[in-house]
Structures are given as C-alpha cells and as structure tokens.
C-alpha cells in the first residue's frame, strides 16, 4: 500500500469513527429522541445493542490489525440504519440529517474496505498479485 493510500484510508476511518462515536453518548444515556427512534422501529433495547456494536466498530477501526473488520461491521450497521430510514423513519428534518450521516459513514467504510481489500479475508487470496506457491 502506498503512503497516500494509507493516509486516505486513515482519514476515512477517522470520519467513520467520529460520526458513529458522537451518537454513542445519546444512545448509552437513553436520550429521548434516540429512544423515540428505536421505539418507532420497534427495537426495545435497540439503542444499547446498536450502541455496543457501533462502539466495537469504532475500536476495531482504530486498531491497525482489525481495520477491515471494523469497516465491515460499520458498513453493516449503516446499511441497517439506511434500511430503517427507507422503510420506517423517513427523511424529514432531523431524520434526514441522521440518514445522510449514515450514508456518509457507509461510504467511508466502503472506501476503507476498497483501499484495504488485500487485507479482507475471503478476498485477499484472490487479489494478491501472484497465486504461485512460494516456499
């Protein structure tokens, strides 16, 4: 990986961590708006479950060995969030802002995954330049 690619990846990792991270306080403290959202999609304890998973994604995104796992988890969570906006929450007002942030995080995670595709299990073997046995 070139230095430029590495830097780009880290920039998007940080973006994803900041966006996910700043919502954690609301989730863990049970802020009324957050609770309302999770109530609306009928996920009791959803704020805790999703909060814990997002926290895990943030930590994984910051540890060099596990960046691709964090990005995969983050992308999965954001896909779920976007499904929520499309199906039930809608995009009105503040909701729209939250939805856009979810999209931004999803895009960031995907960029990270693309840059680090050679680290992703199940894919890396296929992408390495030569598959010739080396001993």
């Amino acid at each position: 990986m070139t230095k430029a690619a590495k830097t780009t990846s880290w920039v998007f990792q940080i973006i994803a961590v900041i966006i996910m991270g700043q919502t954690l306080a609301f989730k863990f403290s049970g802020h009324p708006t957050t609770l309302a959202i999770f109530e609306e999609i009928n996920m009791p304890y959803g704020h805790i479950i999703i909060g814990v998973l997002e926290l895990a994604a943030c930590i994984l995104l910051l540890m060099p060995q596990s960046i691709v796992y964090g990005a995969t988890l983050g992308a999965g969570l954001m896909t779920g969030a976007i499904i929520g906006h499309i199906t039930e929450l809608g995009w009105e007002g503040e909701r729209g802002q939250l939805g856009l942030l979810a999209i931004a995080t999803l895009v960031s995670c995907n960029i990270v995954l693309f840059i680090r595709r050679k680290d992703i299990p199940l894919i890396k073997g296929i992408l390495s330049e030569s598959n010739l046995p080396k001993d």
Partner: protein
Amino acid sequence: MKSKISIDLHKLSRFVNLFLPILAIIFFLAGLKLSFYYHFLTVSFLFATALNVFYLYLQNGHALLRNFGLLAQGRYMLESVGPELRQYLYASDTEEKPFNRLERAEVYRKSQNIDSASSFGSLHTFDATELKIRHSLFPTPTSELTPYSLTFGEERGIENTHTIRKPYIISAMSYGALGKNAVRALARGAKLADITMNTGEGGYPKYHLMEGCDLIFQLGTAKFGVRNKDGTLNEEKLKEIADKPTIKMIEIKLSQGAKPGKGGLLPKEKISDEIAELRGVSKEHDVVSPAFHSECKDYTSLTQFIKRVQNIANIPVGIKLCIGDLAQFENMIQEFKKQDIFPDWITIDGSEGGTGAAPRAFIDRVGMPLLPALKGANDALNEAGVRNRLKLLASGKLIGPGRQMLAFCLGADAICSARGFMLSLGCIQAIQCGSNACPVGITTHDPKLEHGLDISIKAARVRNYVNNLKHDIDELVAATGCQSINDLSFKHLYVPADSSISPHVPNN
C-alpha cells in the same frame, strides 16, 4: 458410479447462488412486517450476495469460485487446514516428511533430557535397502574410548588452527532465514555445549557474535557482509571479520543441498530494515544470490580463490558443496593436488538438505543424496592419496545418532546439522520457514511470534541435545568394537544389495 446419498455439488452451488439474494429479500420483508431485528440477517445476506457476485462475475483468477461461487470457498478452507489435519490426525508415526514423528520425537527427548528408550521393536520396515551398523562380538568398554578431537588447519601448519572436541557443528543458517532469538538461542547453546556454529550467508553476524561461541563465518555466493558494490569480495571487510577472536574458521559456500546450482533466496516477506542493512540489499524484492562465486569460473580459478581467502584470513578455510557429478568432484581434487592447494575441510551437503526458501524442483530433484555422495567423495580423496590433507564434514538429515553413525562409517570426520538444531529449539515442522509466519518463532522476524522463543531455556535444550547425541554415539562406537569415531570405516556397515550406496561399492 453414483451412490444414492451423493450430493450434486453443481446443483447445490447453483441453489446457494440463487438463494442468497432471495433470503436477503425474505429477511427484508420479515424485518418490515415482523421485527426490525430481522434486518441483521437482511444485511448479512446482502453482504454474502455481494461477495458472491464478486466471486462469480468480477474476478477471473480462480476458476472454481467463478463457476461455483461462495460454496467453493469451502474447498479452499478445507485445503488450507489439510496439512495440520494430516499432521495431527491422519499421518502415521513413520510417514511424515522430511522428518517423521519418531525422528522428531527423538530430538525433542534428547533436548529435554528425557530418556529415549523405546519398547517392543523397530517401527521401520526391514526391507532390502536399509544400511545397518555392524557391531562387534567384543564391544569396547565405554571407559576405554579415546576422547574425540579434530583439528582444522593442522595439515597446512597454520598458527590459528581450530580444534573441536565434540563431533557436531551447527550448520549454516543465516540471520534472515532465522530470527534473532533463534540465532541467539543457538549461539548460546553452542557456547554451553562447547561446539562451533556456522553463521550462514546472512552478512555481518551481529547476533551470532553476541553470545561468544566459536563461529564459522560463511562466505556465500552473494558475499553478504563482505561484498563490494559489484558483488566481488571485499578483502578488508573479510579480514576485519576473520580477525574477530570468536570467528574461528571461514566456509566458502559453493552450493547447498536444497538448491544446488542456484543461489540463496530470501523472500521479501522476511526482509526487515536491519536485514537489508546487514546484507546491503533492498527491502522491496526477494533477495536472490548468484548461483556461483563470480571469482570461480573453472577448477583453476576456484582453487585460486580458496588460496586467496586462506591468505586473507589467517584461520582455517573450508568449502561447502552438494555434489552433482562425482567426476567433477574428482577433477576438482586433481586440481587441488596439481596446485598443491587444499581447503582445510570439505562439507558434503546431501540433496536432502533443508532451506528457508527454494524452488520446489531444486529441493526435490537436484543433487546427489548424502550417503552415496559422501562415499564417493571419501573414495575420491583416498584414491587421489590426499585424504589426509583435509577434513570431511557431512550434512543432510543427520539429526539422530543412527544416521550419524552411517555418515561416520562413510568417511565423515564430523557432523553438521541445521534442522536437528531447529528441532531442538522446538521446531514443529510447520513448513512455514519462507513466509515469516513460523508458529514457534524460529524462522520469523515477527516480534509477536519471536516472543514465544525463550533464549536461555532453548539454549539449554541445544546443550542437552548435543550431550545426549554424544552419549549415544559413544555407545554406538563402543558397540562396533572401535576406540573412536576415527576408526569407523565402510567395513562397519552392512550394505544390502539394493541400498542407495550399492552402485558405488566395487564388486557389487
């Protein structure tokens, strides 16, 4: 013939490929109507579908994945754990290569000072090809054996000869092939056991020197550590190394059993900043040494080169080679005789030798195996009447006392081993030496893996291994009725008609 319960994997994979997206849709609907929690599954199956699309349509390197998709990963996963499964579950005690479980267990036991007596009988196939040692009706009492001693350089009458008192040398393994903890554990073990260690062709032997053991500096074909920019020998640098008090001898490496006719190879995975510096090479590519010394183009120049190194370094200088053609070996000896220049020793490395990294075909198919090569070399030296001008060393799977005895009977004065000592450090034969992923921290530079290798404990294992080998060899020599290893000869071997050395025995 198809059995009733066989599964049509082609149909199954088509089914899976179709159902991944369908399941994603089903869970999406469930998430919509039943509970949002179903969307965890929606997302998982969406991702699986995306991965599958990639396998089926967007990549072309792997036909199996292109044809069958995700399900085919199962094959690669199973294949990737195959070696471990076979090693732990399915391979019998005498089946594994290069060293089977029995052979390895013997080294482990010796290193840990565990009694290695076995019960009931031999697990070998007693067929017509195995060499055996002839014992005497009248064994020597072990107390009457002559202590072993071998002095390198005495034939040339030089001042700085080197004497070894145990017939073992740790064979060449470079820092690069081995990690620093492994090098230091071996070096400290060599010091404890009072044996000599070869540095291998890894350049300046920084870590070898740390432990204060006797060393042989190896001059590889790329001359790492003592090279000029153009790859020729830098005499000042060689002199500087040869003058160090613990550098006792120099070995010119002509070839190595695992890759004779090809230079050394260090995969780029294993090149750290430090290794690049000690060798003077780049980190970006595999480091491939030339197949031969640029100074040695024919018999004459080879002999001259040996002389040149002997003149620079005021210590014994030997050569190491794997024999391809015994006729060439004889010609070389004739040239030595003609110029009256002899290396102080010759190490014969068998084609069964080990390596950190080499192409498969070289490992498997090039070079003469040790036993016939050693016999041929010893005979050639005797016929030329110059056997007393140099010492003969042998390496190639000589990790246990039984096979070492064969080498002594075929003419070896001392034994070199690389993998025997790796096993004594706890090598589990994971065959990962070239990938920097050695699970026991021997052939790796990954600090996390090296962490597992405790230098002082492993050094003690090396010492135990040497001492227990020595003990067994003494008993075996006594059984033959000889006084010392020097007295062992071909006539102490029982050679069946179909053995690997039979073609080299006259009137056979």
